[in-house]
């Protein structure tokens, strides 16, 4: 079963991702900030990351930069935020995000991106 790591400091948002993705048969784990996220990654890498931007202790950018520095299999990351300002986009992609979505992410949008990035779609 493919594994997804969801990092967001809001419980409702994490729940939303979890419920939506579990319905796809994915195994979902949660972290409340970048530090916790890294801890989880070090235990076992994931097949996809969904990362919020604004989090205490270590934010999304910080998490991504650390993640990309690790010598582990690198999986795609979706960065999610409420900001729509250009500088954040560049920062996100530079830090290592592969897709940038704006909250609130509709289920259909989430699922389409997840399916494409996690490699579940069979042509």
């Amino acid at each position, binding site marked *: 079963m493919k594994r997804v790591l969801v990092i967001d400091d809001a419980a409702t948002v994490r729940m939303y991702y979890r419920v939506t993705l579990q319905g796809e048969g994915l195994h979902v784990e949660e972290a409340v900030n970048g530090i916790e996220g890294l801890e989880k990654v070090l235990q076992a890498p994931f097949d996809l990351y969904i990362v919020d931007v604004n989090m205490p202790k270590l934010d999304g950018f910080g998490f991504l930069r650390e993640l*990309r520095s*690790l010598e582990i299999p690198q999986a795609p990351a979706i960065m999610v935020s409420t900001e729509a300002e250009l500088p954040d986009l560049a920062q996100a992609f530079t830090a290592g995000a592969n897709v940038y979505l704006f909250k609130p992410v509709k289920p259909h949008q989430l699922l389409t991106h997840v399916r494409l990035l996690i490699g579940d779609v069979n042509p």
Partner: protein
Amino acid sequence: MNALLEQFIFESRECLQGIGEKLLQLEDAPGDKDLVNELFRLVHTLKGNSGLFEFPTMTRVLHAGEDLMDEVRNDRVVFSRQIADHLLASMDFVGLLCDEIEGSDGQVKSGNGNSVRLAESLRILIPSRDAKVVEGGDERGASPPPQAPSRDADLELLGMIPEKVRMEAYRTSREPGLYLIHYRPVEGCFYQGEDPFHQARQAPGLLWGSLSPRGSWPRLGELDAYRCMLDFHVLSTANLEALEEHFRYVLEQVELVELPTLFLVAPQGEPNGGPVYEDFVAEALGLLETGNVNDLAIVSRALLELSNPDLWLSSALRWLLAVLEREPENLMALKFLVNSLGTFQAPNWVSITAATPEDPLPAIEATAHPAPATGPVLPGVGGIDPVLAVTAHAIIAIQRTILAIQDDASWQPGRIRAAAGALANCLKALGQGHLVMEGLEASLAAAMAVGHGEPIVLWLDGLVESTTPIKALDPPAMARQCTASAPIPKPPAELPPPQLEEEVKFARRAEDAQTGSKSLKVDQAKVDRLMNLIGEMVVSKNALPYLANRAESVFGVRELSREIKAQYSVINRIAEEMQDAIMQVRMMPVSFVFQRFPRLVRDTSRKLGKEVNLVLIGEDTQADKNIIEALGDPLVHILRNSLDHGFETPDQRLAAGKPATGTLTLRASQESDQVVIVVEDDGKGIDPGVIKRKAYEKGVIDEATLECISDRDAINLIFAPGFSTMDVVSDLSGRGVGMDVVRTAVEKVNGTLHLDSDLGQGTRITLSLPLSMAVTNVMIVETDGQTFGLPMQSVIETVRVPRSRIMGIKNTQATVLRGRIMALKSLNEKLSIAAAPIANAEGELAILVVRVGQEQVGLIVDQFHETMDVILKPMAGVLGGLPAYAGSALMGDGSVLMILNVMEIL
């Protein structure tokens, strides 16, 4: 409040809006199948969302509504006005709940009583069914089995439970009944991540469980392991609430059968062997007749000790003793048990209990919702879902950009690998997986070697050129379609348009189609900010010609001056386009205002006992957001007036030879730079005579005017302040607020209001508003050293008049301009500036001829300056109360220009 909740509230309100509209439409066309289905879908969606957030108060009502709509769409119930009323009331309630949720940040405290009442009022409209057995499990909707046999089947099922378990349950259960749970999961439940076996095993109060296949198993080669073909049965001592809570997500697939504990009582065992104690039976029956249960217990115990425990007899005796222990008063049960000792047949409690009215079979607690839809099904085109394909291309484009980033980030290798991975997966999704092997892997290896992503970028670009089916799309177009990423820092070079775009238009999911075209939900503050910036730009650019002139005249640099002017025209063109663009953003269709009227007309006309048909024309007509918003209240006033005073009752209408149902027409159209709204009714019109008299009574006009005023002008007296033909304050027309307020509101946005009426035929009100409030052309004037602006639409011309030609008549000044007398006013005086107007060197005064209503007035100022476009911003706060000023505008040099309101000043 978190964004998810906000989204929920927003979507819920949109749903409610749609539901309201559809309900009203359906009233006029009750047979319209499409409307019914759409209505059902909206309610269903809303219910689903509310369930996600656990607002049972809301869900309860929506659920009832959904069930009711389900009955309607399956032709089991005919749509009626009554249904519409109840549904509207329920949706209003849901709307209130949304407000409460929004206001209290996600909590719903009150409303349960109303919720239950409304839900009941809806359910009552659903005809009850006899066998209220669920349709769960078999999605093809097999007819519900009749009650009796299924209870027999349940008995059989019970019989499978080992006696020990049943005995224990019977002995210990304090409830009058137990629940037998039949859980028949839908075939696709595995795909939704459900494990029904686990669900069943975890059921509260589980005493016993079993599972059974729904049919015979296919051969292994044909087996679809992921299609659920199992039913689960559980016996539980838990109460209904606990069970409904446990199975809450799959409740419609679950049948909860309440069984009296008595049903557990079933002797089992080897019937042969052992004596047949007919004597015992006789004796036991005798004891029962006299109610001597104690003795019965004694003799039963004695016999049991003597018998082989595996015998049917022993089992029956054990049960006899158990019943004697738990419910010795249940003589009927005892009697049948005793009899069974002789017959070797377990008592059939179903028929027994059905026969005895004192112990009726409890109703089956089953809920009947439609089976939940399985996950979203995306239509495919050529095997690949177009939405997926389009998104895949977008993601590919982004990865290219990421790979093209040239920096010296220490994490670059990881970033490249991740991007390559994303690329690979997208390519596979597009059916181009072979490319991964054929090129991506090699270029990735190369990229790792050199330490940056260029090899992969080159490879991707090479792909595009060689016209393979993959054509990377330009990101902004993708962004609009997917509302995913916004424009990214380094967009790829010009690339051919996607061939899949066509297909996307056709094969959208129904939901997407319903929510409308590709659009962004944008915060109003952002739009306003943009508008301000553009406004400033428009104004700032104006400085350039001036600078160009200075360059030439003061600094003598003609070449530079020319270049500045040339650049200015470029900037000017762009600024004008930007201005136009932002005004387009602010343009909204009038339907925004119109959409609440059908409901308003319906409710109000009903209340007044009138029959009125509302016709809306030209709802797509667009105007600036501010104008649209300003229209709302005036129109409501006008409509209410019309309903209240304009339309006659059906009887009156018929007597006058008109159709009983009146027609109220609301027409919007665009004429040059104005939006024209016409409200027309075929009511009784305005009686000039009545108006004249009322006006006279209220002292609005004097006797002389009363005599000679024309009918036309009399009608327009309606707009006089303090005028109202209704002495009694009617709550509908709102506190006797007259039409003067309406006119003021319209004029505040530079609009005009016009009234026409024919007695007995009807009334027509015409509102004329500027299309856009954004940019105003003003003339700048100076007086007493201060500059002011006047809107050019009021300015007719500028003249210079020598003092000698200015005459004083009574207290005012006037002059003759082209053979007509024109009154003159000094701006200084109007603004309470003490100074006198200054003449120029030739002794001429600068006079601005302005239009005030129908007349022309000359405004004396010191000096004219240029005209320019400004963004007129209304004054805010305390200053907003100053009637003399229409607003202010920001100048290129940062100063503020006060714009005068001509009408007010003069």
